[in-house]
């Protein structure tokens, strides 16, 4: 690959560890720690098991979405459709299950298939039809938003079954100290670990290589279109898992899922994953998601007026990303700001065309 992939986890586990404490990831970790310290000063009881578990339960869906978004971003693309997809999936679940316990598993299976199809469409349109992914997924976002509302006449109908709600709402009861350990936390952990392992597999390396320099990746035998399509499928499937958790957590409301795509992208970038691909780790994305959720919690713990929260959020995100950019920028001016063609890439590109 290129000389710069050393910052990614894909090539070697050891460098992954080192990398995760450089650049954005360290910033996110630092910010997360700082936020927790501030929360602790405001509300020491936050760190007694149950509130912490409640935080984990709320944060789990965003963590999963962030992992999904990471797969797409590290491969050099965007997925703006996840918010609409989460909303669509919850509404589909409610309408098809309609309170029938026996329908739960078949409908979840159907949701996974639907997620897979959406991911496949996003991926193939982006890779084979060469539509820029921001437009592809903006289109699917509109299509899902409109189609699901058209299907249900504008407002969700039906109801989720109790068993559908278990993963998002329930947990392992009576654990010492923690009280209830939410299934959502377990699922998020499984997803994160699986993603870490996946990124160390040949597929993961291919994914990062594609994001870093897809021409070079193609030359080294990666089927770029297939790798990217898999990333989109992964993102949509994980959005489906997140939808099961979000629907389970809070039931059906008309607004479910709105704006989640931007929150997920923010989380991933805050963790130090670079838009444009090729750099950043799963752990970074997870840290970013936790930081964003912790920030929301902090605002609430501080009784920060609701209306001013977006301003503070905006400032902190910009400052954190700028800080991370500076750190990462020391060696590679220009690179992290946006992604001009790398010299290697250009040489390759012009030589073969």
């Amino acid at each position: 690959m290129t000389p710069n992939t050393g910052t990614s986890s894909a090539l070697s586990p050891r460098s992954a560890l080192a990398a995760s404490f450089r650049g954005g990831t360290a910033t996110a970790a630092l910010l997360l720690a700082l936020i927790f310290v501030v929360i602790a000063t405001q509300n020491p009881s936050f760190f007694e098991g149950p509130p912490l578990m409640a935080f984990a339960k709320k944060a789990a869906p965003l963590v999963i979405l962030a992992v999904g978004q990471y797969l797409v971003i590290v491969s050099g693309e965007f997925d703006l459709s996840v918010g609409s997809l989460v909303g669509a999936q919850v509404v589909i679940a409610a309408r098809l299950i309609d309170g029938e316990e026996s329908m739960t598993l078949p409908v979840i299976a159907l949701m996974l298939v639907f997620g897979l199809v959406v991911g496949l469409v996003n991926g193939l349109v982006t890779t084979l039809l060469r539509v820029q992914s921001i437009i592809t997924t903006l289109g699917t976002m509109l299509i899902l938003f409109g189609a699901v509302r058209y299907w249900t006449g504008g407002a969700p109908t039906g109801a989720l079954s109790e068993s559908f709600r278990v993963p998002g709402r329930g947990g392992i009861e009576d654990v010492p100290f923690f009280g209830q350990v939410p299934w959502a936390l377990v699922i998020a952990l499984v997803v994160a670990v699986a993603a870490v392992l996946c990124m160390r597999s040949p597929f993961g390396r291919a994914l990062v290589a594609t994001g870093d320099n897809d021409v070079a990746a193609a030359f080294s035998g990666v089927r770029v279109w297939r790798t990217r399509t898999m990333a989109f499928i992964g993102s949509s499937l994980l959005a489906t898992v997140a939808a099961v958790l979000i629907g389970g957590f809070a039931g059906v409301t008309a607004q479910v899922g709105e704006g989640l795509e931007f929150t997920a992208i923010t989380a991933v970038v805050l963790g130090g994953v670079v838009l444009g691909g090729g750099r950043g780790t799963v752990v970074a994305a997870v840290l970013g998601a936790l930081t964003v959720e912790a920030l929301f919690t902090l605002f609430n713990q501080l009784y920060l007026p609701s209306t001013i929260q977006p301003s503070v959020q905006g400032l902190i995100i910009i400052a954190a990303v700028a800080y991370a950019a500076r750190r990462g920028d020391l060696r590679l001016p220009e690179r992290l700001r946006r992604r001009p063609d790398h010299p290697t890439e250009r040489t390759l590109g012009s030589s073969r065309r």
Partner: protein
Amino acid sequence: MKRTAILPARVPRLGTTAMVYLALVLLLALSAAFVAARGGNLFTTANTVDLFTRSSLLGFLAIGQTLVILCRSLDLSVGYVAALSTVVAATTMAGDPSRVLLGVGAALGLAGLIGLANGLVVTKLGVNPFIATLGAGLIIKGYLDTEFQGPAGEIPAAFQAFGYTRIGVLPVSTLIMLGVAVAAVLFLRRTRMGYHVYAVGGDAEVARLSGIRPEVPTVTAHVLCSVMAGTAGLLLAARFGTGSATVYGNGYELEAIAAVVLGGTYLLGGRGGVAGTIAGVFILATLDTVFNVLAIDPFVKDVLRGVIVIAAVAVYARGRHSRAATRVRFPSGGASPPDRGPAPEARPSPDPGGPADPDPSPRALGGRR
């Protein structure tokens, strides 16, 4: 970058633009036929005025967005800037006709400062434009939510004329939008800064090596984009007769980006132009008008919009690709243009999934911000 180096790049760009206008004409013809088949007439005064009015607001936003995208940046804060501009204009004017200029100045001045901030955060602090402008939008949102819980200020009747006067079927706002578009085209084609915009968008590193300070065009584009968003806000204020902070919720930023891309501008910078964007704006406005005339379910509208935007961009991508052999991208540092190459790669096999896929275009898709 010198003129001579740039000129060859223009010819193919015209090609894309011509294609967009062709698409617009086709769409208009199809729509007219469709509406006629339903016993209606698309080109009544009412519908034409409606079409133009819809296009002027989106036009201002999309022209600014084009400049930013050409620099390989992005602005997700335009909706918020427009909302801020409505309340600043309305509260400054406070219904007093003598304060119109002051209100316009205050709104555009503030918008320009936000653009400056966006540009500096992107270039000097190295924050990805996606995050920088999303963050800027959030900051403005917080300010608006806190300070303006509802409509504020009053626009004097004299300035409301900006939103409602029309000459024949052409609203004044559309004329001004088109005027701005012409100015933007001239700016891009006739000024040194315009060339630099393309240069930086094509390849910031090469632009820097050839003596351009890449920050300057990017910051300028951001300032212009925000001022355009401010102008859109002024138009909204003129139409509302007051300032309305909540207009940021209308998703203008994504619509503007869609218009820009529909217009054939390359989302990764360096290619495209304002002329195409205007066609993109008119395509979206035509769709809206036709949907309205045909009384299409609002949710089906979203689905159709999504499908059409994807389909259109897919068609451009095809077109762009099949002409790749003649296409010249912005020349990189005097080296031979990267897109010029042997025919087999320029016209990929129908199955890009072939074993050793040599398809160059995913590279173009990657490297996103």
